[in-house]
């Protein structure tokens, strides 16, 4: 059964590639006018994080993004950021502080008119975060009201924690002015591994956001980015 699935998977990939290569060949035969493809580094900043910091004093953060065309519709993409977030739950409060890097590719599924560089893309990332957690305070969870627990001001600091995860994302980038892009991106994350603090848990990880109980996470970003052209090729 598994073998059959593997075969179907391999065959469909091969079919996909053969179909692609045929298309390209036909295009070459038909096109006599050369089209310009520009290669550029697009650098940007996530504007949702500064806005969030402004509205909510418990959360500070910054994220820089960058992407660059490798071949055809494939783009190498990177996100770098840091976060310092205070979270309060029913029985405890903690602070997470750290930085992260995400590396991966985007596939642009949008057919641009000649000269346009807009994107509607899907992508994948490998992400790594280094951070520390501080358990600020907690109140032991006790049934009933006969003994009222007092809040423990723990202030326990857990240093040198890390996490690796994968992200699958979907987003778009639209050129609003010459070389200036507005983008929005939505991602679903799946944890690979984390270094957990002792007698506590990584409930929030910079870049991953809230860690749900099945090790999944979600994230959004809204970016303003600028296209720095490097060179153009003609095909």
């Amino acid at each position, binding site marked *: 059964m598994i073998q059959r699935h593997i075969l179907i998977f391999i065959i469909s990939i091969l079919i996909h590639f053969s179909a692609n290569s045929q298309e390209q060949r036909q295009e070459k035969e038909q096109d006599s006018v050369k089209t310009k493809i520009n290669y550029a580094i697009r650098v940007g900043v996530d504007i949702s994080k500064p806005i969030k910091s402004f509205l909510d004093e418990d959360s500070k953060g910054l994220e820089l993004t960058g992407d660059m065309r490798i071949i055809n519709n494939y783009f190498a993409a990177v996100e770098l950021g840091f976060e310092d977030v205070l979270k309060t*739950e029913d029985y405890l409060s903690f602070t997470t502080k750290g930085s992260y890097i995400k590396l991966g590719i985007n596939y642009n599924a949008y057919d641009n008119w000649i000269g346009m560089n807009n994107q509607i893309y899907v992508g994948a990332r490998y992400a790594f975060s280094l951070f520390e957690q501080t358990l600020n305070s907690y109140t032991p969870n006790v049934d009933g009201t006969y003994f009222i627990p007092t809040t423990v001001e723990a202030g326990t600091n857990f240093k040198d924690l890390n996490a690796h995860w994968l992200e699958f994302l979907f987003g778009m980038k639209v050129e609003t002015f010459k070389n200036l892009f507005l983008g929005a991106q939505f991602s679903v994350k799946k944890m690979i591994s984390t270094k957990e603090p002792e007698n506590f848990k990584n409930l929030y990880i910079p870049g991953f956001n809230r860690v749900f*109980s099945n090790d999944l996470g979600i994230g959004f970003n809204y970016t303003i980015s600028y296209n720095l052209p490097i060179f153009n090729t003609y095909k």
Partner: protein
Amino acid sequence: MKKYSTLIILALILMLSCEKDDICLENTTPYLMLKFYSFENDTLVKTIDIDSIRVLNKGLISNYTAKSFDSIQIPLDINQYTTSYQITSEKTTDTIYFSYDRKDIFVSRSCGYKTNFENLAIDSITNNWIKAYNINTTTIDNDTTAHINIYH
């Protein structure tokens, strides 16, 4: 069509990722469980008629009129290292002085921390209706089995 299918897949993953970890469903701080046995035959569970249970110098936990129990669950003070209980049965009162260490254990996001008790000991006990006792376990991390047997 291709674009729609990606959207649908992403929406599905999003729905799966939403799980109820906002509601505390795990066990939290355990109770101390006392079970009553016959003094004459120490394997025989013998019920007892309890009138009241209270912590020394504190309000009543429960007030009954000769209600019959084969076991009781009582809370230990999570702010102190000792708790003294007065249990009244058929108008005679016995006082049990418990001592223990506390250990706070992380449970989950929504439950926070629970307090387990370790090195449980009975420092002293009066013998009006209680004839003997036996500590089955000195570590209290659940309230499913009896921690102390009381013989009467």
